[in-house]
């Protein structure tokens, strides 16, 4: 191997300097603010050190808990829907007997909503779902599905469901592409052998496809939960930006943003950021653990 080469430091210097300044330092600064009552104005030197008060407040804050459960509920609905559709599509398009055509076209069409700016999507849906003049209500009324317009964005359950639905609409194409790549990577001999042994479709799905897909499913799950915990643009722009209706769209990052930049509570906002980070780590760890354990079990089953 090469010996210690000082030229390397020259090449990595820009990365390291920027990384320390614009990545690590802001994160540490945020932590420092989280133990002060800094408002964000008038300079940090005028703020007081208040120890863990912000964190104490956080674990007793009903608004934060509501924001947490809102985020989880929206993510859960979104993920179930997204994964269900994506899995179904992936199975259909990889089925060796069906031999469906036009995979590339369908993949592109289903993926398209994913690259549209969320701000645009949110504004679009906020007017499409308008109570009196939105196209959706007008369409449903003229089709006779409903007799009175529904105030979609004024009902907590509807509003949360719409955020989940819009999220699923944006992301199922992405998940479909990933799952399909995963399923295509499974050797076909596995299925042929299972078929010879008299396994039916459900057996091959649960005994071959799912276990073989575990790493990919883990990737989908982790990226989805990390992204889902950070949901912000859509709930902010779909209603008033403060979580209406009745706080149902108040997600954790929206709460963080409003505490910091609408209510001038930099210190508390910083504590929310660390709370969110902790929650993200815990969820990722749980996912890793449970998936890993699942895999060990499958291996044991195989050696029997």
């Amino acid at each position, binding site marked *: 191997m090469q010996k210690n080469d000082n030229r390397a430091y020259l*090449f990595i210097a820009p990365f390291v300097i920027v990384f320390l300044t*614009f990545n690590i330092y802001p994160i540490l600064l945020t932590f420092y*603010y989280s133990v002060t009552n800094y408002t964000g104005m008038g300079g940090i030197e005028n703020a007081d050190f208040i120890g863990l008060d912000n964190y104490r407040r956080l674990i007793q804050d009903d608004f934060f808990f509501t924001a947490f459960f809102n985020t989880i509920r929206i993510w859960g609905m979104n993920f179930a829907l997204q994964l269900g559709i994506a899995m179904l599509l992936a199975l259909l398009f990889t089925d060796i007997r069906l031999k469906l055509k036009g995979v590339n076209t369908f993949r592109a069409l289903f993926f398209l909503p994913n690259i*549209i*700016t969320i*701000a*645009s999507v949110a504004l679009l849906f906020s007017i499409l779902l308008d109570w009196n003049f939105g196209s959706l209500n007008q369409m449903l009324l003229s089709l006779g599905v409903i007799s009175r317009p529904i105030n979609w964005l004024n009902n907590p359950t509807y509003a949360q469901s719409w955020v989940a639905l819009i999220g699923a609409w944006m992301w199922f194409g992405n998940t479909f592409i990933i799952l399909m790549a995963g399923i295509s990577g499974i050797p076909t001999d596995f299925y042929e052998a299972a078929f010879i042994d008299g396994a039916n479709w459900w057996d091959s799905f649960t005994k071959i496809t799912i276990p073989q897909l575990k790493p990919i499913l883990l990737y989908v799950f982790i990226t989805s939960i990390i992204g889902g915990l950070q949901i912000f643009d859509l709930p902010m722009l779909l209603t008033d930006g403060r979580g209406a209706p009745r706080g149902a769209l108040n997600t954790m990052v929206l709460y963080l943003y409003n505490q910091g930049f609408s209510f001038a509570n930099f210190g508390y906002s910083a504590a929310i950021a660390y709370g969110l980070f902790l929650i993200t780590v815990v969820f990722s760890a749980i996912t890793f653990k449970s998936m890993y354990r699942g895999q060990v079990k499958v291996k044991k089953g195989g050696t029997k």
Partner: protein
Amino acid sequence: MDKLKAARGIIYFFLGLLVIICFVPFYMMIINATRSNSEILRGFSLMPSTNLIDNYFVLDSYINIWIGFRNSLVIAVAVTVLNSYFSALTAFALVVYQFKGKNAIFIVFIVMMMVPGQLGLIGLYDLSSTLGMLDTYWPLIIPAIAAPFTVFFFRQFLVTTMPMSILESGRIDGAGETYMFHRLVLPILMPAIATMGIFTFIGSWNNFLFPLVIIRSPRLYTLPIMIRQLQGSPVAQNLGAIYLGVAISVVPIMIAFIFLSKYIISSITAGAVKG
């Protein structure tokens, strides 16, 4: 055989239906962009009307959406170029040289991939304020130089595709390290740069939270911030103009996607398989 044919027919029918459902929102957006406010208030229609130009003038009297386009483009291009170039440089150093602190960098990478971007939001805002960078593009662009995920991806790519022998023979020919990076390594990395570049560009183009916090002056607004400005603005009285504003922000992306979809889709798969 016939049963299979029938199944296929039913599946295609439902796939078609799914495509229609996916595109109804965009279709309504384009149709409504051509209709007057009173037409939209009266009811919905699947046929375009004739008010596109009028709607454009209403929209244009309030915001210049093309400025938002230009601003988003400037930022996204700068971010993509910096991200690609400096990530390649860093990955090159990590693969080719042996040096102290290399392992520490790897550990930091893995940890940083788990850290949500919002964790440093408050700190970055305050740092920008201290450096006098609030209401400029610098806090949105400079951090692109240090992108752990891109470096990681490039490193994996180099390890599997770049033979060390070409560097050895370059050195024997008297080529400098920087020269070799530009002439040998960057070309090898090109496919990986294209893959990550598309995602970096889309990510920057759609970025909402950071510009929202950093940018104040309307002339510096990026497209997403401008779109937000439309909501609750005087233009909101005219639904046709709002639909048009959204349509203008969406349609160019759709057109770009038609040309790039092949690359984008293969990139997603690459990310998942490597990740």
